[in-house]
């Protein structure tokens, strides 16, 4: 995308420079065909069609799929903390640390109890808003056990900057231990 963007930018500025330094002997004929049909309409239509299809295919791949070993967690945002609950361990609530199994797809059911927040773990998925009264579902999957940084990405007042959390991805044994209530 960046390379394409740079190429288009260079092309447009190249044309502009040529137009600026050109000194036609007489006023050229208005070449509507090339300037408006080909460059004005054709070029962006072709580029955008390709780009949109690419984006949709990529987006489709990121979509949650039906899968048997799906883990579901609840993420509830407030000014300025996150609390996480686990459908596999009712009653278990963690604050500002989300525990997930590594290598398994996880659905995060995101909501808020006060203002609009946004759930964002850059290395695991794009962001999704936490809106009071609504539950948005985000599919994440950590490839390997480890700690992943997360943060809110919707302005929420004075504590917005510190409104962060971490995601702990566990191997199978550690995940089971966590669900059993071990720290």
């Amino acid at each position: 995308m960046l390379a394409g963007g740079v190429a288009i930018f260079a092309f447009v500025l190249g044309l502009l420079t040529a137009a600026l330094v050109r000194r036609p002997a007489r006023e050229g004929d208005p070449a509507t065909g090339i300037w408006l049909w080909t460059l004005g309409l054709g070029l962006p239509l072709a580029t955008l069609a390709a780009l949109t299809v690419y984006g949709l295919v990529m987006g489709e791949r990121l979509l949650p799929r039906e899968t048997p070993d799906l883990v579901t967690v609840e993420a509830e945002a407030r000014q300025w903390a996150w609390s996480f609950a686990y459908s596999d361990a009712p009653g278990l609530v963690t604050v500002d640390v989300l525990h997930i199994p590594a290598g398994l797809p996880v659905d995060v059911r995101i909501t808020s109890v006060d203002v609009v927040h946004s759930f964002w773990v850059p290395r695991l998925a794009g962001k999704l808003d936490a809106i009071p009264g609504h539950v948005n579902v985000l599919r994440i999957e950590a490839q390997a056990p480890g700690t992943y940084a997360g943060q809110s990405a919707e302005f929420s007042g004075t504590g917005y900057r510190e409104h962060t959390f971490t995601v702990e991805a566990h191997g199978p044994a550690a995940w089971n231990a966590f669900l059993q209530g071990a720290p």
Partner: protein
Amino acid sequence: MNQTGLHGTALRLHKTLARIWAPDPGWRGWLTTSNNNDIGRLFLCVATAFFVIGGLLAMLIRAQLATPGSAFMGPEAYNQVFTMHGTVMMFLFAIPFFEAMSMLLLPGMLGTRDLAFPRLGAYGLWVYIFGGTAVIIAMLMGLAPDGGWFMYPPLTSAAFSPGLGADVWLLGITSIEVSAIATAVEVVVTVLRYRAAGMSLSRMPIFAWYILVVSVMILTAFPPMILGSLLLEVERALDWPFFQVENGGDPLLWQHLFWLFGHPEVYIIFLPAAGMIATILPVMARTTLLGYGWVVAAAISLAVLSFGLWVHHMFTTGIPHLGLAFFSAASTLVAVPTSVMIFSWIGTLWKGRVRMELPMLWLIGFFATFVIGGLTGVMLAIVPFNWQVHDTHFVVAHLHYVLIGGYVFPMIAAVYFFQPLLTGRSSFFRLGGVAFWLVVPAFHVTFLAVHVAGLLGQRRRTWTYNEGQGWEVLNLVASVASFVMAIGFALVILDIAINTFAGLRGRRNQWNATTLEWAAANPSPNYGFASIPVVRGRYPLLKDPDLALRIAKGEGYLADTSRNRRETLIVATTTGEPSQVVVLPGNSILPFLLAVVTSTSFLAPLFKAYWLSGLALVGVIILALIWVWRLAPARTEGLVDAGHGSQLPIASETADPPGWWGSLFLLLADGVHFGSLLFGYAFLWTVAPNWPPPTYLSPELWPVVLAVGGAVALALAPRLMLRGIERGRVWPMLLMGAIGTLALGAAAASVMLARPDPASHAFDATLWLLAGHVAFHAALTLIMLGYLGLRRIAGHSLRVGEARIVGLWADFTAATSLLALGAAWLPGAFG
């Protein structure tokens, strides 16, 4: 006639017209003037002052972010500063600045003497000055809004923003939007009706097309925002739960209303700048615009498309996937008309021979910047990418590329280009070039660094950041470069100020431009043209360089000054045939006074002084009636001599006076506002979590009968009145209309009485707004009918034009009342 005789005629005409169009002497003249030159200059200076304030706020932000862990500001101050920076730049600078430019230039371009409603323009100016000043004073008192310029509830609701800040935003900005709507109505009617003889639509200067499109966009995009502000302010003040989930509201409703406005807003800001580019660039290339029709079509399609993509600001709110695909495709599609414009401009440069003057330099700065902004915009339209960079500094950088590159740079080019017309002087010192070479490179350094910081994950709206995340160097570079840029902007303002007072007197039309505004003297006099020009092509000065002289000698229309009043020509909308003579109002303090009471009624609720607000509203009604009354001519003139052997009617005696056209477009905005209300109702009903409400409203028979009967009476009365005017019998119809409005008012009251607690559920609150819409418009129509009755009592015969204006409002009231009450009753009738 010999040469001296010729100039003698021109000079005599100049002296007479200058006297007729002169403002009042002394400082009082600034308060009472309504001439587009005076109002436009004031507008421009005030908008520039707000640009300086917004710029200072930006420097505070960059000072804070220059180093990690900065102790310069805490989050409380920082949140106010970035909220105000966005608000000031968008609402107090960008929109008023192009409005000012079009007020100053449009009459000249169109070949007319002033805008359609000079007093409305003056009123808009004063409302803007009062509203803007109130917002700035609140900021200096530490009471600025701090919820972001987008004001998302519930963060901005009373529960989470208890102070005055959010109210300052909602009331102050709404009053400025009202001013923008006033100006938009004025501009639309001017472009459609006030032009030179023979200037058909296809012969209009390209800027007139752009500003026409923009004005219609303002009329359709601002009303959703005004409704949103109204809902939020009512929720904050009276606890009507439009955005509170537990009582049937939904915070997402605000986001929809806000972005229904917010996205078109981007193009409302870009298109006037594009219009300036399309005007200036051909002159700088000593040629004409390549593909005039293409560019007009591109501007119109950009406007239409921009209304289809508000959702792209909400990609992360959990919109269904199919919706995302649609809006993603629509978002990328806007690049197509933009690309048509860009290549038309480069093609124009290609076919001409470019001269590297200061305006051209700024246009090159535009190209280099805006193309990058457009490309990062396309990247943002791709959903997976958007999910990652949304709310990071990447978006900040993108929008500054688009807004500064796409708006500020072309507007600076425009100020330099039109400087001879606005001030009578041309550039003298070399300061302008120095300023350019400071601003543009520093801009790119600043915002390229901000792009990268965003890609590295730096979030927007965080008041500081920690060390060790790789952002320190980028932020320091951005901050240093931004201060260089600020110095550059200061030099631009200084340069223009110096030129204004000490530049060289330029010769007429120093750029050899081809459009009519350059046929006026330097600077353009208050009366604009000594006679209304006759044009036979799109570029009147191209084939006819002597046109300016002939206009000055009075060889166009309306050169006869014997009627001793401000007159200009109205033409047929499409063909440009002269069709009416319009008498424009003279100097008056009324617009200023009306702005004072309007602003009072807007700002009094800040201090919970609702009684003062109500009192001021009564003042608004009284002043508005005096205003209209004084403008209505006392006697009928019949046809008057317009020059060139033509006899034309006076506009106020025709069936479609300017007031009728103005009402038509004001009602367009009103209709969109009402449509947004219905949209909000439907949205809450289908999407908000706590619906349906405990009970619906079951209609009784009598209010339904009143509503239908009232609407029918109100729709019929003005139509019957048109026939009655010929026979001199209007009282029965006036009475019939009045009864209709009262019946509608009673039906609206029945809704409120049946559901006395609008704070209990969003459904009840919506019912009150629907009923309020009916009651408000019924009252308005009643006042208009009352005005006609008073005219009759005072012994004036009613005019067809007046009756048709009231007819428009009556029709609108009748139709939307039935829709509003129907929407209120329907669920209960079937549920």
